[in-house]
Structures are given as structure tokens and as C-alpha cells.
């Protein structure tokens, strides 16, 4: 079971700045454990952001993204009170979706 994301969204100018912190191991599949066995790859493959249910951003992620990744983006035309939903899918098929209201 994955841990919740931390989403902060604030109006700035004619849009909103969204900052997201995700809890994920982001294993590259290149590391080895203490016994010398390869630790299998386990990372987020796709991130989507939606404003009031309408997709505004999709990103394809891979092994180059850090553990516990932080991402920041601007949504044009977003207003205070709008709902922003962030969702990710990882290569094991696990998914997580969290929501925040723009302040």
C-alpha cells in the first residue's frame, strides 16, 4: 500500500502553481542488495494531473527520476477552489491518486 502524496496548489497570477511530493522507492533495477542479487526495477511510469477532472498534464517517467520525487508545474487558467488531481502508475501496476483544492 502506497503512502499519500503531499500536494500544494496556490493561485499565482493567471494560473496556479502546483507542487507535488510523491512517496516512491524509484528503484532503477541496476542496484544490487547485500547478497549480490539485483534489486528489481520499481518506478513510476506515468503521472497525470487533472483540473476539475480534465487532464492537463501527462508525463512518462523512468529510472532517472529520484526517490520520493518532487514535481512542480503551472496550470494556466486555474482558479481558487478548483480541484487538482494527481495520479501515478508504476511498473508493477500499482496506482495512487490524490486530490487537493487550489488555495
Amino acid at each position, binding site marked *: 500500500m502506497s503512502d499519500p502524496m503531499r500536494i500544494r496548489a496556490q493561485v499565482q497570477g493567471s494560473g496556479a502553481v502546483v507542487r507535488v*511530493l510523491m512517496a516512491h522507492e524509484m528503484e532503477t533495477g541496476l542496484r544490487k542488495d547485500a547478497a549480490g542479487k539485483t534489486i528489481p526495477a520499481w518506478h513510476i511510469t506515468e503521472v497525470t494531473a487533472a483540473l476539475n477532472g480534465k487532464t492537463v498534464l501527462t508525463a512518462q517517467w523512468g529510472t532517472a527520476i529520484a526517490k520520493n520525487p518532487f514535481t*512542480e508545474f503551472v496550470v494556466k487558467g486555474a482558479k481558487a477552489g478548483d480541484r487538482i488531481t494527481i495520479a501515478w502508475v508504476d511498473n508493477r501496476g500499482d496506482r495512487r491518486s490524490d486530490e487537493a483544492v487550489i488555495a
Partner: protein
Amino acid sequence: MTPRARPLLAAALLAALLAAAGAAPAQTSTADGIAQYRALLADGNPADLWEAKGEALWKQKRGPKNASLEACDLGRGPGVVKGAFVALPRFFADTGRVQDLESRLLTCLQAQQGFDAAAIAATPFGQGEQLNIESLVTYIAAESRGMTFELPQAHAEERRMFEAGKKIFFFRGGPYDFACASCHGETGKRIRLQDLPNLTANPGDGVGIAAWPAYRVSSGELWSMQRRLNDCYRQQRFPYPGYASDATIALGVYMGVQARGAASVAPAIKR
């Protein structure tokens, strides 16, 4: 190189030097560069994730006794979290000893929730119940963010621990003949790009004890003060101190009392 070529080379070198000197004011110093890098990282400090998890763990009913930690006394009364971090380690009458945050949590995990404290102390960092302690200390430290360190020294046992901590801090030994003071005894020293706080005096706001627990970017781990000290001893090539042992608590008292009046930024972010 022919003798004739030399003046030419010298002229070229001089020109290069002059150019470098002219460009110098536009460059930022290394320290500024590091500060800028840290500021960029701090905006999305993943310690927030541990903080949120710790808050949930504090309130969640768990363990053999199926109880929450909300009856746990961290020194400011049962269940009071705010301000507890900046007054630890301190003397606790119920256990009859000076305890830091981690050792006090062990007491609470056993007393309130029925966990085996000795088994948790023997668990390696980053595994099992130790993972939950990481989250709990992050939450508890974050509740005191911005507050200043005021360790009590009224009890004789607290003063004794301060003296013991001071002794341990300056104790030289091991294959490298190292003491904590070898690295942390002078102002303005660093190891590669890491500034070393002078812990024999008050290191100031958000430095030393006022910065741990912290998220380590390089390893993606959350380190409590216990883990920080454990790694300091590894670097000194000393035997590892016991988890939440009196020696580590005494060092906490020594550093905490020295830092009186310094504001806490914990949970911080480190390289």
C-alpha cells in the same frame, strides 16, 4: 619549448589572468552555490512525507495493546507534542533516567502499545518498527519547528549527563585517535563541501542538533539523531554505540544545552 616562445606564453597567461580577475565579481562563491542548491531542495523536502506518516502513527491504535501514543508523555505532559522536541533530552521521573526523543519513544511504544522496546532497539536502522520511529520523530520534531532549544538542567541527573556528554565528546580513541571534537571543535571547518558545525559552542539556528532529524537526499533516507550519531561513530572507526544508549543520550544533552536559544529547523534536508 623554444626560448623565443616563452614571452608569448607569459603574455597569454597574463591576459588570461586579467580576464579571470575581471569576471570574478560576477561569480558566486562556492558557499553561495551550496546555499542556493539547498534552498531549491528545501522547497520540496520529502521529510514532509515522514511527517504526515508520523502524525497518523501517533494517533493510530497499534501494537499488542491496540492503543495510540496519545497518552505518551514526552516531557510536557501526556499527549503534548508541541514544544517537546526542543526540551529533550530531559529527566523523566517514571523511568528514573534522562531520555532523548528516541529512547522516550521506546518507553512509550512498550508502555502504551505493548511493543518490545529491547527488540526494536536491536533492529537495524530503516527496518521494521525502526521505520515507524523515523516517522514519529519527524512528526514530533516538526511540531516544534521554529521554537528555540531550552533543555532543562534543574535535575542533578541532567547536569550529570551534560558532564558525561562533554567527556564523551572530547574522548579520543580508536584506530584514528579521533574524538567528536576532532571535526566539531573549531568554527569554519568543512569536509569536502559539508560545513562542520562547531559543537563546543552554540552553533546557531538550524545547525547541529537543531537540524536533525533530516532527509538525506543522497540515500533517500530519513535520519534521526540516533542514526546521525551512529554514523559519526562509524566515521571515527569506533565501535557502534547502542541504540538509545546512555552514551548517545549524554551527547544529546551536551549538544542540546550548548544550543540553548537556537531555533530548530528540523526536519531539515541534507545533501
